[in-house]
């Protein structure tokens, strides 16, 4: 097995085991999506209108819950030193961690979203667009989040600063993602919004491993 696959599988396994973050993020997402209709009330048209925005914001926040531990866990117990000395370049280490985080958080959130869309009375075709937009956009959340996680990995309360760093950077994903759902609700084509969202995610996944690796290197010397 290649070093990349080894690291990826370990991170997925850790997220799935007891004490892991995957189930936590999923429950948080489901709870927020259940509470909002209770708070907003039974205005079905209004609920359908806000569904895209609420579910996207909830998904980003749910993914954020587990992001601060992306490098911090390995940093605190000394594993990161050992990983840094392995033949795997730190850039690929960051990429493996991003992919593992997406698979254990972003993908389950995406798969759950059509069920939660029912609570918002979202019609079938906008629900499909919501699903596609989360599928295309959640990799960007993991990738941009990895930059923030690598910057805050040596801070004891890094989890509190992390949202301040990465939420502004994730605004484009939320705008295009929720926008695509709103367009579909109005019966318009959401192809452009989805295309921009996919481009943003592609760029984020491609570039963020370099930023994260540079930041991990700085922190190992600190």
């Amino acid at each position: 097995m290649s070093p990349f696959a080894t690291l990826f599988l370990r991170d997925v396994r850790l997220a799935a085991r007891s004490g892991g973050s995957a189930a936590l993020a999923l429950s948080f997402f489901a709870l927020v999506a259940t509470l909002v209709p209770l708070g907003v009330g039974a205005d079905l048209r209004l609920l359908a209108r806000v569904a895209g925005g609420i579910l996207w914001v909830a998904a980003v926040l749910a993914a954020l819950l587990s992001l601060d531990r992306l490098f911090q866990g390995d940093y605190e117990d000394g594993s990161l030193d050992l990983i840094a000395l392995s033949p795997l370049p730190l850039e690929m280490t960051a990429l493996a961690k991003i992919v593992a985080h997406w698979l254990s958080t972003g993908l389950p959130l995406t798969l759950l979203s059509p069920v939660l869309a029912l609570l918002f009375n979202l019609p079938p075709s906008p629900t499909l667009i919501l699903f596609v937009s989360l599928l295309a956009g959640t990799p960007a959340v993991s990738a941009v989040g990895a930059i923030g996680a690598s910057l805050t990995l040596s801070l004891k309360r890094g989890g509190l600063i992390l949202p301040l760093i990465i939420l502004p950077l994730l605004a484009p994903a939320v705008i295009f993602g929720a926008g695509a759902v709103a367009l579909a609700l109005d019966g318009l084509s959401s192809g452009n919004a989805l295309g921009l969202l996919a481009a943003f995610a592609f760029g984020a996944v491609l570039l963020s491993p370099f930023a994260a690796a540079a930041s991990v290197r700085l922190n190992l010397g600190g």
Partner: protein
Amino acid sequence: MISSLTAEKLACVRGDKRLFEALNFRVSAGQALAVEGANGAGKTSLLRLIAGFLAPAAGRIVVKSPQGESDDAEERGKSIGWLGHLDGLKPQLTVVEQLNFFAHLYGKAADAAQLEQVGLARQADLPCRYLSAGQRRRLALARLLASKRPVWLLDEPFAALDASGQTQVAQLMARHCGEGGIIIAATHDPLGLGNESLKL
């Protein structure tokens, strides 16, 4: 294989504090170097410098191998086996999962003999959260063996180990040197390898 590791006029600054400067030493294949000094003298910092995590404030570290000389930190890191003061173990993973992970990450095949050598064969399927401090240390040692790296950097290799564990570590270190490896260890106890020591 690496024939020698040399430090030339090495200096280390942490914050405002100058830990050491103009430090020179040379360790050849088959030799060990004990780094001694009071708490806070910079033993761990020196190991982190050699591993390439820290950049030296002055001076350089040169590794000589049949392929030539190099002072590139990234390249040096690929020949270093690291035993830090932290064990780097995940409580959720079992002993054997932990060992396999690091062996594969280092592109090596793990084998059960390494667990036997450190006396952990019976605990192979136990999650690491149930291990004692000494057993965790033993697992970290097995991982060091699995990495099959020529230069061992050891931070307090005898910490938390019982008498039989300390004997095993001494034997493993002697064997590593016998096979032409290099050991640099920060320690308060004698290594017992007929080694030189460096006072910080």
